[in-house]
């Protein structure tokens, strides 16, 4: 009976947002803001209800269910259907995407109320919801790739939503192009999968992979590294993370939904989804885990010194995505997905909170120009605080459980080093999270007089989503309790997808598996580190506000390096973009215009010249003709005589 429920609901998850796009896209301007503001959130809300239906169906049925709409591309044996897949992983993702998506849509009704392109905003936001749901529900690599590319398009459009200004327009373009470099790898990976397995269907690929490819084989490594290249682009990991900080030029709900809660997690989802292939390539797994942890570390270090509230959160997102890759990279897929889920709650909350601050301060984002806001916008402050506690891994908040699960598994499956970098990053995380709480919300007001005059709390339609997300950011962690506290509901639910492989890792790492005592000790260390980070932030920004300035001076070069984000953008410009532009210019102006076309025109000119030259022989003068005849006769006679 679960199967029937799935077939009855799964297509509606996509249909509702699509209808939202069509209704608002074609008729939005005639319907007016009021109707658009109902249709947009309702489309995603209904998709959430459908996703709940599918979730129940998945719980009831004990195997994955595939629903095929039609045969999309058939060329020779390349045969791809438009098909969706319902299993624990896809249903959990669908719930997160549509649930958090719905809350952000509701929030946007308030946040975007004054914008002249209100309709356009909701059309594109619904298109995003549709695309993201397609990505997580697709049953083969190509349908996943369609969703993958379409979310990229929505990201491009929504980052550049205020396209009249140069910065958003450039940021949107940058996001699309940088992620497309990753997609280049992803597309090649899909081609290699087809060439190897003659199918792109998840089930068939995963079934045949262990038979066809031995563990550690070159093809398995190549496939997974190429796929991971896509993830590095989309999930903003080193070296392709540079687009995400700039993406903050988009409206804040977009940053919350796309560039924190959902789209950027697509890479993590993809690795989890294709984990059967990654299991066959231990090298790729190590690459995933190490890129993850290094990104987590560097992004967190950049977040330490940013002054733009949204950019702090952006670097934090990059860093947290790094943690998720550590999780899936060490084979703890359920832990990775668990952190993805809790992160969706608390990071969406933090971004929407930042949006609420902007709303209160007429768009101000520089935390150095804020201060003392906690009594003026209380709801925003308290919900933001919950988000920051969850992010910094404060005990009993959601981030505490999910991050700790990853760190523990990293130690258990891969050893001390990965854990050590992770725990140092956790310290920085706690510090920058509370820097983002103390500097804007505590202390003296440093606001502009004009702005300070009309600081106001956001309307209900924005506050209610904040409160719901705050509740989720607190309670979300109890879905994934550690083993000694009763075990993880998320892990149990996802076990049909991951169980076999995760079990293998535990067995392999048997030597490390050191029992409850060690796990509790590690958890204790995490708690201490989180509290220390928060404490240091309190010391520097509340107790001794002069310290940061002194520190910035004292550590001059390091501070400058961090503040300028290690000069990576500048490096890419100098090493990649500008040389390519130079080459393009040279090819166009010199090689093509003068070289190739010069040759073509040269050939034409040669025939023109030879015609002009030989024409001069035809003088029309009879005497010169007679002279040439005479000369010819002399030469010929001479030849025959002297022969």
């Amino acid at each position, binding site marked *: 009976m679960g199967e029937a429920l799935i077939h009855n609901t799964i297509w509606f998850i996509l249909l509702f947002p699509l209808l939202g796009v069509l209704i608002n896209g074609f008729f939005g301007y005639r319907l007016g803001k009021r109707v658009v503001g109902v249709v947009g959130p309702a489309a995603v809300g209904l998709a959430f209800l459908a996703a709940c239906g599918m979730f129940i169906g998945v719980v009831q049925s004990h195997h994955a269910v595939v629903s095929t709409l039609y*045969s*999309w*591309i*058939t*060329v*020779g*044996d*390349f045969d791809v259907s438009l098909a969706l897949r319902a299993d624990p992983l896809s249903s959990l993702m669908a719930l997160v995407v549509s649930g958090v998506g719905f809350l952000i849509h509701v929030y946007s009704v308030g946040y975007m109320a004054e914008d002249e392109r209100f309709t356009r905003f909701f059309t594109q936001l619904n298109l995003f919801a549709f695309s993201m749901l397609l990505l997580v529900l697709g049953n083969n690599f*190509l349908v996943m*790739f*369609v969703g993958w*590319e*379409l979310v990229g*398009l929505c990201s*491009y459009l929504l980052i*550049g939503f205020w*396209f*009249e*200004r*140069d910065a958003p*327009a*450039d940021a949107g*373009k940058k996001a*699309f*192009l940088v992620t*497309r*470099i990753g*997609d*280049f790898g992803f*597309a*090649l990976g899909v*081609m*290699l999968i*087809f*060439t190897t397995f003659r199918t792109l269907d998840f089930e068939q690929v995963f079934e045949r992979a262990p038979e066809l490819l031995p563990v550690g084989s070159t093809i398995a490594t190549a496939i997974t590294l190429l796929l991971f290249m896509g993830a590095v682009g989309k999930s903003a990991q080193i070296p392709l993370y540079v687009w995400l900080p700039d993406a903050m030029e988009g409206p804040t709900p977009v940053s919350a939904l796309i560039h924190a809660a959902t789209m950027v997690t697509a890479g993590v989802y993809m690795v989890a989804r294709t984990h059967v292939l990654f299991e066959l390539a231990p090298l790729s797994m190590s690459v995933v885990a190490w890129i993850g942890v290094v990104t987590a570390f560097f992004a967190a270090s950049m977040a330490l010194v940013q002054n733009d509230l949204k950019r702090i959160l952006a670097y934090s997102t990059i860093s947290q995505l790094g943690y998720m890759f550590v999780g899936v990279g060490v084979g703890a897929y359920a832990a990775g997905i668990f952190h993805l889920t809790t992160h969706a709650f608390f990071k969406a909350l933090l971004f929407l909170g930042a949006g609420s601050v902007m709303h209160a301060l007429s768009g101000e984002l520089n935390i150095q120009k804020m201060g003392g806001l906690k009594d003026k916008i209380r709801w925003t402050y308290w919900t933001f605080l919950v988000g920051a506690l969850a992010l910094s891994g404060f005990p009993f908040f959601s981030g505490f459980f999910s991050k700790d699960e990853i760190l523990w598994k990293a130690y258990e499956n891969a050893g001390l080093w990965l854990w050590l970098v992770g725990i140092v990053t956790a310290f920085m995380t706690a510090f920058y999270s509370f820097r983002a709480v103390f500097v804007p919300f505590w202390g003296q007001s440093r606001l502009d007089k004009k702005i300070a005059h009309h600081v106001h709390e956001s309307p209900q339609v924005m506050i209610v989503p904040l409160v719901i997300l705050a509740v989720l950011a607190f309670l979300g962690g109890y879905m994934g309790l550690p083993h000694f506290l009763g075990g993880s509901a998320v892990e149990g639910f996802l076990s049909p997808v991951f169980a076999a492989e995760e079990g293998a890792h535990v067995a392999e790492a048997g030597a490390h598996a050191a029992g409850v005592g060690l796990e509790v000790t590690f958890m204790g260390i995490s708690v201490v580190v989180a509290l220390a980070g928060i404490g240091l932030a309190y010391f520097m920004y509340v107790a001794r506000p002069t310290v940061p300035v002194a520190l910035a001076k004292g550590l001059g070069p390091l501070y400058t390096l961090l503040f300028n984000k290690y000069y990576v953008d500048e490096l890419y410009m100098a090493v990649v973009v500008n040389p*390519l*532009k130079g*080459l*393009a*210019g040279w*090819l*166009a*102006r010199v090689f*093509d215009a003068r070289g*190739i*076309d010069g040759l*073509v025109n040269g050939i*034409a000119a040669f025939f023109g010249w030879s015609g002009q030259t030989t024409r001069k022989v035809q003088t029309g003068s009879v005497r010169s003709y007679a002279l040439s005849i005479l000369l010819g006769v002399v030469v010929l006679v001479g030849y025959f005589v002297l022969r």
Partner: protein
Amino acid sequence: MNQLGFPLLSLIIFLPLCGAVVTLFLRKEAVIKWWALIVTVANFFLSLPLYFYFQSGTAEMQFVERIPWMLSLGVSYHLGIDGISLFLVLLTTFLIPVAVLSSWTYITEKVKEYMILMLLMETSMVGVFAALDLILFYVFWEATLIPMYFLIGIWGGERRIYAAVKFFLYTLAGSALMLVAIFVLYFMNAQATGRPTFDLLELQKFSVPLAAQTWLFLAFALGFAIKVPLFPFHTWLPDAHVEAPTAGSVILAGVLLKMGAYGFIRFCLPLFPAAFAYFVPLMSILAIIGIIYGSLVAFSQSDVKSLVAYSSVAHLGFVVLGIFALNAQGLSGGILQMVNHGLSTGALFLLVGMLYERRHTRLIDEFGGLWKQLPLFGIFLLIVTLSSIGLPGLNGFIGEFTILVGTFQANWIYAALAATGIVLGAWYMLTMLRRVMHGPLDKPANRQLQDLSAREIVVLVPVVIFIFLIGLFPNLFFGKMESSVDTLLSQTRATISMGEPNP
């Protein structure tokens, strides 16, 4: 053989010619325009039965007509289409009315002559795709040059004479060798079989000696490579495009370039299969250079139209790469990508033309922030751009991806190199979009611009419908090609693997 019992192909070919003759006697410009539009639209509807009555399960030529023409020489009036030519005929009959309607206000002088040339253009192009006799093919092939020469030379921009002469001479030079090769083939076949014929289907049965295949392939290939145009034979294209009137560019990019790629499939592959296989590396590498080089040069253009022209070099590189992958995905993808390129690049030229009509410039630096002033135009430009850079859900993705899947199986390095075109394509197109449509609307002249008129929307909407249709339901197209492609490939493979040594 002919499932309709009715010479439909002849009707489609000669209806525009008859329409052109009638146009001679019309006086009023408005009447001439409407007449040309009615004739071309009618011709499009006439060509639709080609799709609906086309039988998918067979690789035989369909809608065949065959009348002896010059009997003693073995020339016949032989027409027919298969799954390879079907969509090129339909693309032609579809794009011509679009081009006519797009010229409504753009062409103000010599309207009668213009419309006559457009109609002649249609006759000769459909003829190229339907001819199954080499002489008939050659006649139509060369006949396409004349109307286009005048379209560029009379209604073109400032350097129109230079561009028109260059276009004419360059492509004529290419096809001159092809004519020689046709005769060589004819005499070789006549000597070997004793039955002199120019009939393509007869000649396909004759296996050309290997030594000769190489030279004949090269002679045909040069003509086709110039037409495509394949790097390094492409420099006539930007000149022709930049100077041509909008409709001329639409037809040039939409249909004329396809004649070259079509020639490779229709003639080079079945007639000289061994040579075809032998030249796969050379042609593939030229195609890949075309993709990367075309994209880079496109990026540096300051004129939108010449940017689109160079993007054609890149896109046609994909088509040729697919054809020379010599497998089902590559070849079918290549054929579909011809149609896709006709639609998306055709639409890009239409949009650039609409911009030029308003602003009388095509320099990218003269624009900026236009979306605010022209939102409707912006939506169309966005959709067409996305189609051109291969966004899934739209047509370009289907073609590019199937081509790459085919290429990957033949040679993964080629596929990896060509796939950089996906990134580069997005780079130059989105940069163009950024500079033209986004940013502040800071040039006073751009603040006066009017958004699209109803007529312009009518021009664009059908193209956009097909962009979505192919993207969402490509099997409507692949299904019709399947038998022809499979049969062509299996015949080729059989001939190549007959144990013949490499030429």
